């Protein structure tokens, strides 16, 4: 992250292009880069406002990967237990993904019907496939990470 941020020349093009900076003064990507350069913690709330939309990156003269930097700041915040409310809904989504496969089930009877008539009625993750996926996610440390954030693991919340 520090090598990525060291390429920032503080020109402010990111902040001019950023849609979030346009609607709220509490957000300014150039300032986040400035804080990192000075070795300061960026303001906690700011890192949750970014859309990670990459608009800034495409305008930055040095193509600084701001959305990736924000991603790392979020990951660190969660690991350090500074913030977990921000991601409550995404923890629920994780549960859904690892039990059903998808983030959202068919939203209506009409959708179900349309899918069935269209050959799109794919089965949910079969039991043994789900178990295999969980094993893989455990092996790459995802289970431990969830435990750290929530105090439970996959299937251990609630």
């Amino acid at each position, binding site marked *: 992250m520090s090598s990525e941020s060291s390429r920032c020349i503080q020109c402010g093009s990111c902040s001019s292009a950023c*849609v*979030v900076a346009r*609607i*709220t003064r509490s957000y300014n990507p150039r300032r986040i880069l400035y804080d990192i350069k000075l070795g300061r913690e960026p303001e906690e709330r700011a890192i*949750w*406002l970014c*859309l*990670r*939309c*990459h*608009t800034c*990156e*495409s305008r930055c003269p040095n193509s600084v990967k701001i959305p990736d930097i924000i*991603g790392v700041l*979020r*990951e660190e*915040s*969660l690991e350090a237990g500074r913030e977990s*409310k*921000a*991601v*409550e*809904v*995404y*923890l629920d*989504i*994780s549960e859904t*993904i690892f039990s059903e*496969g*998808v*983030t*959202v*089930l*068919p*939203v*209506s009877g*009409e*959708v179900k019907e*349309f*899918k069935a*008539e*269209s050959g*799109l009625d*794919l*089965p*949910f*993750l*079969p039991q043994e*496939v789900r178990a*295999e*996926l969980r094993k*893989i*996610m455990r*092996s*790459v*440390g*995802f289970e431990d*990470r*969830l435990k750290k*954030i929530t105090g439970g693991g996959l299937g251990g919340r609630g």
Partner: protein
Amino acid sequence: MVVEASGDVVYYPGCLALNVYPGISKTSIELLKLLGVKPRLPTSVLCCGLPIHLSGVAKGEHVDAMSCFNVAKLMGNPDYVVVPCNGCYLTLKKALSSEEFKVKCAVKSKCVHIAELIWANRWKLAELAKRDLSGLKVAIHVGCHYTHAFQDSIKGEDGEDLLEDIALAFNAQVVDYEERHSCCGAPAVKWVGSILLELSQVKMVSVLNSDADVLLTMCPACMLTFDKTQYELKQLEEVERMIPVLHVSQFVALALGLDPKKTCGLHLHLANPNNTSTALNDLIGWPPQEEL
């Protein structure tokens, strides 16, 4: 950039083009068949992982593990994975463009967006058109996770971007609007809600203030945000009208004369031809015969 999908091709719908807007998947598959590709489907669908990655819950290595399971196990390592969603494209293309990932996961697949395939074959498809779209005014939203996230994303040749090129190939009239290049707001962390809700509203109001008949997109997540935002604004009587939000596969399928309900699934959208009245309804013959 050479855009193709040949050999063993899997169509991967992701979550939203399967369980919210399945018409996107049906039309995408129909278009692939018209282009001579007979896609397989994954044995079952696993989310690409983008929502949990953007929020910071899952790190890069976790999403890579999901992508590997997705491509190697559930898709069976095809030559090409075709996606209809910018979010799935962002995740799978990033993974599959990395040699390290490919070696580690033992996969050979490449990822292509259906919009790219349509764009590359737009003249061929336009020759098959059965409906005249020359009276249709189209506003365009390509989406950040396609436009800004990759340096090699397709830029327009005849118009400003790939969707404008496609709309023009089918003789539709592209209308500009002030917020054309702004993000839809879909990737916002839900927790900071109200501040970022304003962003989606400003964008949608800008679309509705143009005289567009439809909003053309290439991502179901953007579509859902637009659909919901205008629906809510209409309930609050803050806007006077809604317009259908179409995925590029549905747009082209409509031009090719395919059934707006049975194939395109337009009735499943929040803003659909039953509660909107634009030039689209006349063009596609809505309501469908059996409902008259």
